[in-house]
């Protein structure tokens, strides 16, 4: 199974990853960052780059945890850890927008949709053959998709 591995020391806070995430998940039919509305709350990025206050940056990305708090809290079956590919997958149609996933993620990753009917988190760009857009957009190699093998803990 794969995980986006993070090396915060390499991150210089350019936020290309965030823009790439927004572009990869935009729903207005357009394409290309020049037409991407960065202020539309429907286009929020699923990853965040936060300054550490000392000149460095801390990338906050969904870890698709081995034992995911979010899926453990899900009462609708919308969030499920896929044991084949390791991803925590989300089925919008099943989601009842109770937001216990938001409450339960200890890293504060899940967000809510502007219409309050869905949750929003990393889907590993399942719709893109070439894999997560954020990783491809990073000019520093701070985030990389790596094979992490078996789970450390069930």
């Amino acid at each position: 199974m794969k995980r986006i591995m993070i090396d915060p020391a390499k991150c210089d806070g350019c936020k290309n990853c965030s823009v790439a995430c927004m572009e990869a998940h935009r729903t207005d039919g357009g394409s290309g960052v020049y037409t991407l509305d960065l202020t539309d709350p429907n286009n929020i990025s699923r990853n965040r780059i936060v300054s550490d206050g000392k000149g460095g940056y801390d990338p906050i990305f969904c870890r698709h945890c081995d034992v995911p708090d979010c899926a453990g809290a899900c009462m609708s079956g919308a969030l499920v850890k896929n044991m084949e590919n390791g991803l925590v997958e989300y089925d919008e149609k099943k989601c009842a927008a109770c937001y216990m996933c938001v409450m339960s993620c200890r890293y504060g990753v899940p967000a809510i949709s502007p219409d309050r009917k869905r949750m929003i988190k990393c889907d590993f760009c399942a719709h893109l053959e070439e894999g997560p857009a954020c990783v491809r957009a990073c000019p520093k190699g701070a985030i990389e998709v790596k094979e992490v093998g078996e789970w450390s803990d069930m």
Partner: protein
Amino acid sequence: MERYVIIGAGAAGIAAAATLRDFKPEAVITVLSIDEHVHSRCMLHKYLGRERDVEGIGFVAPDFFDKHDITHISCETATRIDTAGKTVYFGEGYSLPYDKLLIATGAGFFIPPIPHFREAPNVFGFRDLSDAMKIDEAFGKGKRVFIVGSGLVGLDAASALCERGAEVTIAEMAERVMPLQTDDYAASVYQKAFEDHGCRFLLGIGASDAVVDGAGNITEVILSTGEHVPCDFVIMAAGVRPRIQIAVDSGIAAERGITVDEHLRTSAPDVYAAGDCTGLSGVWPDAMDQGKVAARNMAGIEEVYEKPYPFKNTSNFFGITMLSVGRLDQTEGAEVLVHHTPTEYKKAVVKDGKLTGYLVLGNISNTGLYLYLIRNGVDLSDKLDHLFQLTFADFYGINEKNGEYAYAR
């Protein structure tokens, strides 16, 4: 071949069944449940509001039992456990032998001892699909609904029925709605939203008696103020009690809930309990967790169940979202900080440099870490200047072993 029996098909029972199958590919696993369909009680309002059908409120795939090779005996009530002979009795004289048994019977709604309320056929709970079905049927005959209690369950029922044009009156003993989760301001926002959708609230008022017709049905609720409120039926949402009867009848130790040790074992050998019936917590994530931990212990993997932190909830009514964690009401010796803008309301209760309560009304995105900080008593004395803007970056660390995160700062 080892035989595992699980009584109950709610969050704990189903999580336990799936976990057992993971660890015991060969075992015979049987789930016995009163319910016909596996359903999430947290979605009952979606069913009652006609937003989803029975299948739509399931929380596992329809082929869950087939896929995991688990036998599901539905629509049956377990009546007694012979703990010496290791057998569960159910229905009319049927029996099911076990090597390991899990009791996951959940909790049932509670009717306070108000005259007529316990006997009246038109008083319903709102816990199980069968309750929602009864309410749905009653709603076909009359639209005036009296709800006792304005907690999450009462408001869930109210929101569903409002959408269908009911005339809803809600009596709440406390002075505000959702008293356990809200503060006065957050409560007022929700109250207004419900009132805008046609609900009437009676706050600080209880039901004290009723007028019944010849069939014993309640036609008017008499309030503690003496006022009479005509209604077609009543929904009780004034709290739940762990379902412990089968344990009590079988000589298994129970107080408010079924007594369990740190491995979720009951007083009877090879009998475990998980979920709301233990009385340890009443929220979905904790029930799932208990089901998994009990199952691992049943499978021979010794694991200590970490005490749950039950003071947590989220709500989402009419698109108004709220996160409420910790004890917002316990402010003695604490500092209460409020951040209030036209679009956002946040409140933090801080004691000795640690958060003890946190509430967000509005955009609750990315707020999960506050539960972690409260639950684990993380020292925040050097971060009090940006308490409302905390992110994981404030605690950033990476688990080098697997690339996950770890709290480090």
